[in-house]
């Protein structure tokens, strides 16, 4: 990638539109209705991503990372209901948009890379044809140009011999190759926002590094905004400019990456970092996080959903509203932050 060109692109963008986020999620709440009760999956989630920036959304399973992504894509399960908040993408209100507008937006302006690359590809169509389909639908290319453009995209994501691989079916490609195809599909129409939902889970570490370099390299070069959803703090450290930590449907802390690790302010962030193995630490240095996620079907959920697991909890922590302190580029949702 041409880093100089990328840098000027981003700067030009910054001059043109000073700090208007590409994606802004404000106070988003989502509920799932199940037969055992209403699951309050997201509560007051706020996120912002700017051009050329990568936001990491980290948290353990059940924290609401993927629900947030699917809500932004407007691909939620029919049992889900958005009960409050706003999602603004490039100035457009995503919650008010009609299905036709959304379908047009997805794939062209708004793209997603999925966790299981093979399952997200159509098994009975050659991968080149699948990319060509997207280009024909959204990319403004003619039928004659499409195959060559598809091959060029495959070459761009580092697939050797792209003309031949374009005729391959997903089962003929390795997991890493399928994920590259997934990336080529997602980036085919030069979207403004890319959401990557655990894009390298299940891939080998060596492949993972190559794929992440590729995604973030392309994103930076094109001034694209990226949301990386992951449970892997190491991956988020390496690739994200800022990180939002989620726990039980709340964003508990948002901070620039370096600051988050240097001075975590929410007790959960501190515990999460303290539980993650890294070189130089012995097993005894790691501490688990007490308790488990609260049952999100509970009627009497305290305002702070980390309350039951927090050793710093005080009696007034249960009282609404959950304080969200914002200072400089950081946000922490805790009454008594570290």
């Amino acid at each position: 990638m041409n880093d100089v060109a990328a840098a000027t692109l981003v700067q030009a963008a910054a001059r043109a539109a000073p700090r208007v986020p590409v994606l802004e999620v404000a106070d988003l709440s989502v509920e799932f209705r199940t037969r055992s009760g209403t699951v309050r999956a997201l509560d007051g989630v706020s996120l912002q991503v700017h051009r050329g920036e990568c936001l990491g959304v980290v948290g353990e399973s059940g924290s609401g990372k993927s629900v947030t992504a699917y809500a932004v894509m407007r691909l939620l399960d029919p049992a889900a209901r958005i009960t409050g908040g706003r999602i603004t993408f490039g100035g457009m209100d995503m919650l008010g948009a009609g299905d036709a507008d959304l379908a047009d937006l997805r794939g062209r302006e708004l793209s997603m890379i999925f966790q299981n690359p093979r399952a997200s590809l159509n098994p009975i169509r050659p991968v080149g044809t699948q990319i060509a389909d997207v280009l024909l639908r959204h990319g403004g290319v003619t039928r004659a140009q499409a195959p060559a453009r598809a091959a060029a995209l495959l070459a761009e994501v580092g697939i050797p011999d792209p003309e031949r691989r374009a005729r391959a079916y997903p089962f003929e490609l390795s997991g890493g190759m399928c994920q590259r195809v997934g990336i080529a599909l997602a980036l085919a129409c030069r979207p403004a926002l890319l959401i990557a939902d655990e894009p390298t889970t299940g891939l080998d570490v060596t492949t993972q590094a190559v794929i992440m370099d590729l995604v973030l390299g392309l994103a930076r070069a094109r001034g694209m905004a990226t949301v990386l959803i992951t449970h892997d703090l190491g991956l988020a450290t390496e690739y994200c400019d800022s990180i939002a930590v989620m726990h039980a449907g709340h964003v508990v802390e948002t901070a620039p990456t370096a600051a988050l690790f240097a001075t975590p302010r929410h007790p959960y962030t501190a515990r999460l970092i303290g539980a993650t193995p890294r070189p130089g630490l012995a097993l005894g240095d790691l501490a688990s996080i007490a308790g488990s996620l609260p049952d999100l079907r509970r009627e009497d959920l305290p305002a702070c959903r980390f309350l039951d697991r927090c050793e710093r909890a005080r009696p007034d922590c249960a009282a609404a509203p959950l304080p969200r302190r914002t200072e400089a580029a950081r946000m922490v949702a805790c009454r008594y932050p570290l």
Partner: protein
Amino acid sequence: MNGAPLLEVAALQKRFPIGGGGLLARRAPGLLHAVEDVSFTLRAGETLGLVGESGCGKSTLARLLARLLDPSGGSIRLRGEEIGGVAAQRFGASPRRADIQMVFQDAEGSINPRHTAFEAIARPLRRLRGLAGPALHGKVTATAALCGLPAELLPRFPHQLSGGQKARVGIARAVATEPALLVLDEPTSALDVSVQVLILDLLKALQARTGAACIFVSHDLNVVRLLCDRVLVMYLGRVVEEGPAEDLFTAPAHPYTRALVGAVSVPGRPRAAERVRLAGEPRSPIDPDPNACRFHGRCPIGQDRCARAAPPVHALPGGRRVACHFPLTDGALAAA
């Protein structure tokens, strides 16, 4: 940690026939070389890490050692007794069965959905230790308690247990017969970090208590570094490097190990400016060229010689071994 080794593995080999094989097949089936010429020793109380990419043969090696698969060649000796020759199907009747147990990656899948946690832990004891009645009940409850499972969870079925609790049931089942060798196949890869810490603590405590030797298969090098004394790095069925965990990670001698270690991301540590990245994909493991290094083609430092001759195994100071024509010995020597 002194004395005779608990486990001696020599020239262990596993080849799977691929395709053909039917009555009317014209061409000879190809052979997938899953594990090739693997040798190492393991002492009681020691933990050996097994790392490498998926398809490198680490899980096959784990199953060979657990005697769930039959080796195609080589020997496995437990306390000096050859156990590799007993067919896996008959190994269940061997008195050594209780000495080698395994913990699986998918804790949920390793418990029969129609069995309770109690039944899952009781089965090896009933069959291999001949326990029944109150003795069985007492041993199951004690093992469960040792693994941090309160007795009130024992009547539950797997779908009624959390991920961490299922992992504990899998571990309790494996340690119930007090095995001398415990094979752990990615026991924490499906768990969240907060639960992973608890399970790793449990494994360490159990090992300190029972003195069992452990083989720890994992793709998470940060976890391997935490738990293992020594590490075997595998690439396409062969061991490319072996050595004490800390030395191997700080100064890898094989170019593949270096790439593997370089690909690991560390929470809170910014990205290094210059990193080794592996291009391309591993070669096919089916009928590989015996006279070439299997890493050739992806290797950043490979030369012509690597395509013409299999690399020799160099012994390095500090009990390290590396299979490479051009080992990166400067760093390794410095570490030793």
